[in-house]
């Protein structure tokens, strides 16, 4: 199943917990600082490995992560 996340950079405090729990390792820490002085987590997933498993959003202390998942295809109904 394919998924994606969006990280609210302004909320992120760069604690790295999401990057540690991500099983697909698609979250990295930026090399720049936000206006609040933190290095935010960045979602970098060129190979579309994110499954929308929710682990990052579950552990994020700042509720900065929104998770999306591919809608399931309609199941064919036998006639």
């Amino acid at each position: 199943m394919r998924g994606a996340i969006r990280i609210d950079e302004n909320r992120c405090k760069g604690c790295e917990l999401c990057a540690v729990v991500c099983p697909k390792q698609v979250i990295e820490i930026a090399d720049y600082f936000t206006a609040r002085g933190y290095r935010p987590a960045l979602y970098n997933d060129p190979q579309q490995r994110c499954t929308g498993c929710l682990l990052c959003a579950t552990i994020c202390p700042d509720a900065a992560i929104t998770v999306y998942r591919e809608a399931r295809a309609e199941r064919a109904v036998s006639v």
Partner: protein
Amino acid sequence: MLTDSMRTVYERPLTLTPALTHYCPGCTHGVIHRLVAEVLDELNVREQTIGVASVGCSVFAYNYFDCDFCEAAHGRAPAMATGVKRVHPDKIVFTYQGDGDLASIGAAEIIHAATRGENITVIFVNNGVYGMTGGQMAPTTLPGMKTTSSQGGRDVETMGYPIRMSELLATLDGASYIVRRSAHDPGHINQTKKAIKTAFQTQQRQMGFALVEILSSCPVNWNMTPVDALCHIKEKMIPYFPLGDFKVAESVKLLKG
């Protein structure tokens, strides 16, 4: 990558205000705030909820929860919640307290609120130090743990032993639901959320006093990175403060089933 065919499966709960929190990076207070907010959303009781904030790092909780809130004197949140609940028995009343607040200066209030079986919900965040004032030793500081007021490590000969609040409160007949959970990994965070939900449902069905103790991290005052702090909970705190259900009244057991 986000595409048009994707739908949102998780977003920030409505009960959290847009305010940016003052918590340090990696502090699990934020996680526990979010869990309480998600539960209030799921039970659809935001408009009927009155929270009571304590003194400690969670002193500004009223800025972060989008429900009615009041602020109690240090340790007196259960006493204030008792009053609020008795005047407004149709409202959902919860306190959000840290260990310095609940287990130290507020020990009398929490014990008597529990023994009276007040129909309130208590969220007890246990991180083993006084976070707001700079990391002094709390009643729940582990033996041997270094803090700013026990610089050689907590010496149990002179400073006594940590209090296990959940076990203590579970001996009281008035309490209905007393459990300890942890916020150190996503699996335990999900279990914590279930316990918080049960604690609020206990109050909704007027089944009496419910308390959820949550082991939390304090990376700054423990002098650790956020990731190491979560490992510290798992390796050092949980052996001393075992997770589990210490008291679940028969009526509350039916809730779960």
